[in-house]
């Protein structure tokens, strides 16, 4: 992909293909055209991924996908560059405006799943960084992306997750994959996990 003048698209493309982010010298604004291209790219990525989703995969939600992409893009740039005041960060890192349903959670997750690692990197550099809580609070609603990381609160709301069969199973998969003890200890989650393990709990997750 040769889009030298589309830093945002290029960053997201690299992230999705080789799981690396590119950092630039400044926080460039994102043009409408670039945003459109990125949405197209994310939609094909979503379609590829949803082949592996159990049950019927929810529809792609472009607002959520592009929001997630922006979070990781600006979040990653913030690791290095701080020309902006903290008060301005809210404009770069706004809350998600739309309805939070299974489709939004899964679409945003395409990019949002990489954000926890960025936050960990920020914490390593400066644990008191004021940008960290701004980023972390996004996971109150989008905790699917941050399963297994410390900053997932204990009082997460699982209603949305459990309302959709596909997301519910994906959520459980990720809990097992990342061995997220804290979430697995929640009663509803635990009983669903046990049902999935069948007779083989010892094979899949001995410590639980």
């Amino acid at each position, binding site marked *: 992909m040769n889009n030298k003048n589309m830093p945002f698209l290029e960053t997201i493309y690299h992230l999705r293909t080789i799981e690396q982010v590119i950092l630039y010298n400044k926080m460039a604004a994102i043009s409408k055209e670039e945003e459109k291209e990125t949405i197209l790219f994310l939609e094909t990525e979503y379609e590829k991924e949803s082949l592996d989703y159990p049950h019927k995969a929810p529809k792609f939600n472009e607002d959520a996908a592009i929001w997630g992409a922006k979070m990781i893009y600006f979040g990653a740039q913030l690791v290095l560059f701080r020309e902006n005041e903290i008060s301005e960060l809210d404009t770069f890192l706004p809350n998600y405006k739309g309805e939070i349903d299974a489709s939004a959670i899964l679409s945003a997750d395409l990019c949002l799943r990489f954000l926890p690692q960025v936050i960990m990197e920020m914490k390593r550099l400066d644990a008191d960084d004021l940008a960290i809580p701004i980023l972390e609070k996004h996971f109150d609603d989008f905790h699917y992306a941050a399963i297994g990381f410390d900053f997932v609160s204990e009082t997460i709301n699982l209603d949305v997750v459990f309302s959709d069969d596909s997301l519910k199973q994906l959520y459980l*998969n990720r809990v097992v994959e990342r061995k997220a003890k804290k979430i697995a200890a929640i009663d509803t989650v635990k009983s669903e996990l046990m049902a999935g393990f069948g007779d083989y709990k010892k094979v899949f997750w001995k410590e639980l």
Partner: protein
Amino acid sequence: MYFLEINKKHIEFLGAIRNWDNVKAAFDEQSVWVKDFLFEQLSAVEIQQIPFHVIYELKNNLLFKKGSLLPTKKLPSGLLWTPIVRALPVALPSFNHNYFGIDQKLEIHLKASEAVREPYALLTDYSELVNYIEKAPDFRLKPLSWVILEKKILIFGNPLLPVKGETYWLKDDFLLPTGYDFEWSALSKTLQQDLNPLGEDIIIWNKNNNSIVIAKNKMKPLSISSFRLTFS
């Protein structure tokens, strides 16, 4: 704890169980004693076929005949236990110059086996599998691989899926129906070297003596997308 007693003059009948490596044997003046059986071995065909044998259960240092409420005798003291393979050495017959039977052939069959084995493969069909796979947790699918055999689907790995089908266990790259083993079990390695010398294939051996050869590199990791792309 169970013991088997047999008179010394019938010692050659023990040859049937000489390959059980957990079992130990000892001698006194009259008889041969055998111990350390696994529970399922006690009722195995191999034991039942031995003539003149008696099985005792040891309780409070007294030997009770199997199923009897009264003790029969005491276990002789001072028995020296050795693995049965060493207690019963094999003597090769001296060379027979008049033996002309070398063109004889063995026919390979399966026979029922008492030993419990972990199933390693599941033969099922699309209609059974589709209901499970499309809803399956990915941690159940990850350890498995699969291949399509005409109208059937064969899944390999452990633990297998909770789906109806026929199960097989793995021995020297042969998949044998669970509950069955080769009649000449010790020959499986030799068979493998004959049929599958490079170990590139897996051979399903069915009860009716049919076999199916599957190249190992045809097996693909099982996932929802792999399943959907195959049948879409």
